[in-house]
């Protein structure tokens, strides 16, 4: 089932009468890696949460191939900035997601373990893993059930360069397997390495949306210029 194009029509999200997201209009058509950029408090995570139905928005504000998010949520997964894992073994964490997503495939957990090269830690309780290992397991959990779209909220922000590189490679592989990736990031070099489509948010508003090539070569307003300079 095709879930793109994603269309966002005049999305507004307020907390205590302050706009977190303001007049967001968006259309995403390509199965590539879309990166949402912006300074702290720009609304990046809120936009991801809205796209994943974790924030309730008015009907028809967000549609996926003309369907509301609630009807295709089963095809979405999310990886959070701080990995959220259960107090049980890596295998059991993956198995839990398999059961909750009602995945029938018998060996799907084993396949994910093999794909992410985490066989050596499958029997270890998740609480004893390093930050990078935890994030790999989180991505594994998100991959169970063969989602069509994965949201990643700053997935490498707490990781060392080696794990950052490893996670970036995993994200690239995910994208080439026909899964739409929408992620947030602060890391300009990372954006250049894996980004294909860029959305720049400032104070809840989209101020730039285009391909990475155009983003690098274009002349920008001061906000984006400073972001690129110090990012």
């Amino acid at each position, binding site marked *: 089932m095709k879930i793109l194009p994603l269309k966002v029509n005049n999305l507004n999200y307020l907390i205590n009468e302050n706009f977190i997201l303001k007049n967001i209009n968006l259309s995403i058509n390509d199965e590539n890696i879309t990166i949402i950029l912006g300074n702290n408090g720009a609304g990046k995570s809120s936009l991801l949460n809205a796209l994943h*139905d*974790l924030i309730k928005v008015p009907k028809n504000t967000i549609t996926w191939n003309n369907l509301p998010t609630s009807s295709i949520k*089963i095809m979405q*997964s*999310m990886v959070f900035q701080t990995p*959220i894992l*259960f*107090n049980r073994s890596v295998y059991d964490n993956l198995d839990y997601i398999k059961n*909750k*997503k009602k995945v029938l495939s018998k060996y799907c957990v084993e396949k994910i373990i093999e794909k992410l090269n985490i066989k050596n830690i499958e029997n270890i309780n998740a609480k004893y893993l390093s930050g990078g290992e935890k994030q790999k397991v989180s991505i594994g959990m998100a991959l169970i059930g063969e989602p069509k779209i994965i949201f990643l909220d700053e997935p490498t922000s707490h990781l060392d360069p080696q794990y950052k590189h490893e996670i970036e490679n995993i994200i690239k592989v995910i994208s080439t397997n026909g899964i739409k990736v929408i992620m947030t990031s602060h890391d300009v070099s990372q954006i250049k390495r894996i980004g294909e489509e860029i959305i720049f948010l400032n104070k809840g508003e989209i101020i730039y949306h285009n391909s990475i090539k155009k983003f690098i070569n274009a002349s920008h307003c001061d906000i984006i210029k400073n972001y690129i300079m110090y990012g």
Partner: protein
Amino acid sequence: MSINFLENVFNLIISLDKSLIVIILLSLKTSLLALLIATLLSLPVGSYLVFYNNKFQYFIILMSNTFMGLPPVVLGLLIYILISKSGIFGFLNILYTPSAMILSQTLLIIPIIISLTYEEIYKKNKKYNILLNSLNLNNYSKAKTLIYESRYALITVILTGYGRASAEVGAILIVGGNINNYTRVMTTTIANETNKGNIEIAVLLGIILLIISLIITLIIRSIRKLY
């Protein structure tokens, strides 16, 4: 405390007679049954409360916290009024029976288990809520997951409830009547025998209660190491 006194207590421990065994077993039976009933009722309530943020939730939490500090004799008196012959539940005929004692112990520990369960599940829900919502789970599935994730803490909660039930005197004395070989338990026997001057028996039962308390404490400590 004379050598003779300690010798008497020691002899009682060795020759633990049948009537004392009946008292110990009845104590364990009433406390454990009360604990089982209270746990089955309170765990789901305490867990489900985290999913609601309304006046009903506020009321239940407020009542649970308030009743945690309720003097047992007051609860015993209330139950006595309700189940005595002229009370609205008088037709149950449970006054001065182990059932009345189990009822009072259950009602005594329900607020404790609800309040402490709510606190534990609330902490876990804060951590896992976004993931569980991402998985689009209903409240039943969420509650099951959160209870499982809080399993070690909840065992401590349940053992705390047991400690409260087994130490109870006031309420069960009022509704049980402290009838020999029928509703007499360790705590009421201690009070009774002390009044009669049979300090040795009271001390013996006190030691047994302390041993049970020690076992519970050791279990709690070893469970805490699992966190």
